């Protein structure tokens, strides 16, 4: 009976080793791979390299050997407007933040969603959403998950892209770049009146400024 149990455990261990070797125990210490699942659309190589760099630089701070995380990337036109973490998170905020930043630049790295392809591959959300002054029909598409790892740590990174494909402006009163400069001045003064002084390295002031800009229809980084 004991022998049989031991044999069973050995078999399981052997199977796990065989399954994990291609992604977790290669000849090289670092690895980045894209398993075959998902929509067929993939992250640009530069973004995968940036994700890999995040794990290379901060992977030693992670406590576990394997993670599966997901990000939701919101794109309007060809621009990434927001990156949110979804579901389980890494136990190191630095690596998590680094990955969000890597995904934030995925459009600059070459990711350009083809609306026709998105319509055929992605699912149309059942409800319309109101984004600022624009009624939008968002489309969600799941990219091929990427496996990044370093020093015995493996992270499966799943990315869902929310693309605003059809945007119909109800009114054309979004502030111009020039208007946003003036609005920023107003926001700075408003936040200086209400938030300062705060012993928090300026983070509350910055959040106040960003929320004020957004409230007035300007990009957070105006």
């Amino acid at each position: 009976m004991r022998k049989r149990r031991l044999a069973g455990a050995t078999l399981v261990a052997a199977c796990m080793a065989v399954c994990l070797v291609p992604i977790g125990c290669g000849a090289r210490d670092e690895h980045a791979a894209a398993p075959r699942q998902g929509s067929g659309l993939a992250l640009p190589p530069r973004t995968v390299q940036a994700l890999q760099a995040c794990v290379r630089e901060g992977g030693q701070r992670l406590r576990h050997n394997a993670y599966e995380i997901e990000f939701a990337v919101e794109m309007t036109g060809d621009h990434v407007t927001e990156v949110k973490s979804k579901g389980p998170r890494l136990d190191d905020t630095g690596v998590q933040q680094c990955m969000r930043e890597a995904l934030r630049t995925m459009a600059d790295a070459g990711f350009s969603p083809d609306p026709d392809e998105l319509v055929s591959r992605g699912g149309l959300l059942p409800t319309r959403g109101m984004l600022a002054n624009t009624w939008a029909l968002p489309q969600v598409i799941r990219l091929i998950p990427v496996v990044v790892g370093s020093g015995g740590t493996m992270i499966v990174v799943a990315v869902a892209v929310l693309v605003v494909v059809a945007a119909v402006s109800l009114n054309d009163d979004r502030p111009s770049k020039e208007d946003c400069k003036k609005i920023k001045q107003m926001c700075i003064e408003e936040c200086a009146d209400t938030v300062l002084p705060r012993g928090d390295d300026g983070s509350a002031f910055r959040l106040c400024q960003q929320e004020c800009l957004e409230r007035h229809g300007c990009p957070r980084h105006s």
Partner: protein
Amino acid sequence: MDKDTAEQLLVRARGCIDLFNEMVEIAQSRCDKGEERVVRHAVGYALSELLDRLVVPIFSDNPDLIPEGLDYGPLDGPKFSELATKMNQQPPPSETRKKP
């Protein structure tokens, strides 16, 4: 820029922000409302520039340097390295003027 340099700059920036806060506290306790607001706005503009042009771009390059528990919101906008590349590509106006 290496991480040590980034840390050194952030320490100094934090020192500036502490001084900014002290300036507002002094104005709060010694000035009338109008004077206090002049100080607040001056500090607000300086703080905004320091955060937007230096601190946040450094954090964008080095997210692990963000102090624990502080939320600066999404780190959108250019990274420090991107700003530096742009600066290298655009010579300062004084140099362009020198050319015949």
